[in-house]
């Protein structure tokens, strides 16, 4: 295996919101975008992608609309709603706090104790 990381539970929704926040995307696009923005480090389990998208849509965090794909096929495009934007902001902040705290904890040396 190359250097892909396992997705932490609960982070899929956040990543989807982030991906969709950059530009309206169809489902397959979301997959590619996450791979791209994570520098090919994150592998999304494809079986969970669509249920997650439907759940986010049902909760009103993203909007789905039919549109034209780059190769002229009908495709369902997802965009972020205002509520989704708020959620993304909250989750990003929370994640950053957590990551900083863990990083700080993990970087501790014996002299600092």
């Amino acid at each position, binding site marked *: 295996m190359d250097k892909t990381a396992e997705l932490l539970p609960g982070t899929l929704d956040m990543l989807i919101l982030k991906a969709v926040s950059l530009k309206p995307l169809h489902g397959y696009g979301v997959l590619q975008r996450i791979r791209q923005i994570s520098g090919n480090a994150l592998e999304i389990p494809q079986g969970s992608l669509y249920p997650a998208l439907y*759940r986010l849509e049902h909760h009103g965090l993203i909007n789905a609309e039919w549109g034209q794909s780059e190769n002229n096929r009908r495709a369902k495009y997802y965009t972020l709603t205002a509520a989704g934007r708020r959620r993304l902001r909250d989750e990003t902040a929370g994640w950053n706090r957590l990551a900083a705290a863990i990083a700080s904890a993990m970087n501790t040396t014996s002299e600092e104790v």
Partner: protein
Amino acid sequence: MLKRLRSLFRALARRRDFEDGMSEELRFHIEQYTDDLVRCGMSREKAARQIRMELGSPINLKADCREAFGLHLFDEFRRQLNYAARLLRKTPAFTATALLTLAVCLGANLTIFGVIDSVLLRPLPFPQPERLMTIFNTYPKAGVERDGSSITNYYERRGRIPAFASLSIYAYGTEIVGELGSTERLQTMRVSPDFFSTLGLGPAIGRTFTDEETTSDTDHVAILSDPFWRQRYNADPNVLGKQIRVNSVPRTVIGVLPASFRFLSSDARVFLPLASRPEDRAPSRRHSGGNVIQMIARLQPDATLAQAQGELDAQNAALEVDDPQAKMIADAGFRSLVVPLRADYVAAVRPTLLLLEAGVLVLLLIGAVNLVNLLLIRAGGRVKELAVRQALGAGWRYLVSEVVVETTLLTFVGGLFGLAVGAGGIQLLRGLGADRLPLGSHIVFDARLALLGMVASIVMGMLFAVPVVWFQLRRHLGNALHSVSRGGTSGHGAQILRHGFIVSQIALALILLAGAGLLGLSLERVMAVSPGFQSDHVLTGQILLPWADYLEAGRLKFVESLMDKLDQLPGVLSAGVVNNVPFSGNIGKSAATVAGHVRRPGESARGHYSYGVAGDYLRSMGFSLRAGRFLTADDSRRSARVCVVDEDFARYYWPHASAIGQRLWDGPEAGKDAETFTIVGVVGGVKQAGLTENEAQGAIYYPYAFRIGDSVYVALRTRLAPESLALALQKVVRQIDANVPVSDIRSMDTRIADSLVARRSPALLAGLFSGIALLLTSIGTYGVLSYAVAQRRREIGVRMALGAQPGQIRMQFLALSLRLLTVGTVLGLIGAWQAGRAMRSLLFQVPPLDVAVLAAAASMTAAVCLAACLLPSQRAAQISPMEALTEE
């Protein structure tokens, strides 16, 4: 939350779009991915395999997506609904029985509740109706329970009782309205100016009456009801100021009431000021209510009924101080009572309605028990199927919801039929006289009632599921498979439950039957009461003589020429006229003073039924003469100061002597000698208000000239069928005055029959309910016993193979039913005794514990139940051992 619900509903409403979209989206994903993989150098087949591995099964994926929207629950529900419908269709006999039971029980409940709702529960259509009170004078010791209020009361109380925000009086009436030649007789109300403000609902157009319009010279104004305005004036918005002729006097229209205005059951079309002369308002007229004028008041927001009653008592006490009649009034037990308007208005019918509601609830209970029993039996037949499914992995949650869906589907459909039965039932009740109940004309089958019915049926469905679920979950899975395959008997608990249900059904049906029996017997006893006169072959009708056209002399002349013409009418044996015939509903009592009678301590002037009669009224009605002579046409012509009293009156004043030749004054006080009336005859006592009237209050009949009123009743005795004279009577009256109509034409027999409607209809309904209850009970008993036989087929087969006789088998099942019947009957008899006690006030000369009624009810229940048991027992006895042992 709301957002999610909306998104769920959108998905449900466009289910096809949702599914198509989902498929298309996945297809798109797969195609794109395949293209990408192929572009990277992978073969198509390999790519397809890779994708399937990563994506998982499309069916599971779609299911996960649906679940994200909450749609899976609905899919499951629909599946279970289809399954339940299929199962119910497979057992048409059960389904039809259940639906019919539900339809009848729910429908009957909706019908009776519809009546209760309109009459007892729904608030009157006025703002804060609970603050509306009615006030009436009562003189219990003079035998006058209810005397309305007087005009004097009104003027003395208005604005002087702080607990009342507003106080007003009204009187019902009928007037002849319209231009000469196109008159009609209409219901009217005369009201004081503050009547509408007391109710809190005034005219939609125009104004109310003013204080200046309450004298007899200035009251030429009128307010119209909305229906009358639409009918007569085509809803003309410029109706104000137009003239309307009431009793041939022109009046100016000053207002139109809103469509929602409805005072109690009144169907008044025209409202007039309740005008009076100064002498009508004098203190001496304080106690002259006569139950014609009624008073209503609205409590202040912070005042209580007790407070108002206290203030009223205090005012009465203060006023009576300088009343010359004070002692007599006090002796009569005089008080003015404040009572909530609505409760007072429906007080008379409340017990009957509550009784019927109780009866119909018992019916519902029987039906419900029946259904649960049938459902349990049905569940028993499916034990094996369920056990297999459970063994194959069906979760208990799924099985429970399956039961709930099935029972609820059943009750829901039954409830829909119940709505139809309820709507029909309300029509039926109209036929039985429900619209003549107080507030009865408000009874409708409306959306509110329908909604209640649907909610009730769904709740019932859920409740029915409880015992069935209990029955199914409680058994051990392996056990079930085992016991059924061996044809063993069912669990002990379930059997006790089923038998308990049968016992309670028998008991409840018996209670209903006994209650209906008591009502029926009571009705029979009432009908056996003699009205005191010969009611057959008498036709009566009311004639209203408007004041403006007929002053006292005019009325006398009218009556005289009417008598002359009627006497010549072919087929008429004799004819007479009276202020009010018995059973006409408008009776009032007034006081009389007997010359030489010394009042005992505490005895007040007594109220007696007092009438003016002309022609041969007493003979025409078939009164029986006890002593002296009847008043005849001669007396009315000569206007002699004579009178006839009834035996109750005579017995009260002269228990040991003859009343003939005694003298009395018409009024509460002794007057001049020249004003006495001499008693010339004594007639038998007559039921005036109804057959069940038991106070012997006494009656006096004066010549009509001394008691002229604005309405008279004609009574004709004939040899023919009385109704056949109706047209002739109308024709005669029209010949005298074309503008005077005859109304309320009925034979005396019809009047008496109509007066019994309040007893006949409940008895009829109770009989109907108990008939249904018996039918349901027999269905239930039959079902349970058939099940017991079917279940023990194998056992019976074995026993018969070992030599048991068919008779023994039959007896075994009959003995079982006898045991159930005995327990049910004992419980039922106890219940019936209690029910009888509860309905004592509705019974007439029937004890609450009537042995004959109870015995009849018990034997009828027993007969029906045993009949229902015979067939299954017989079937048990005919089981062939060979067949029973070889099947399965």
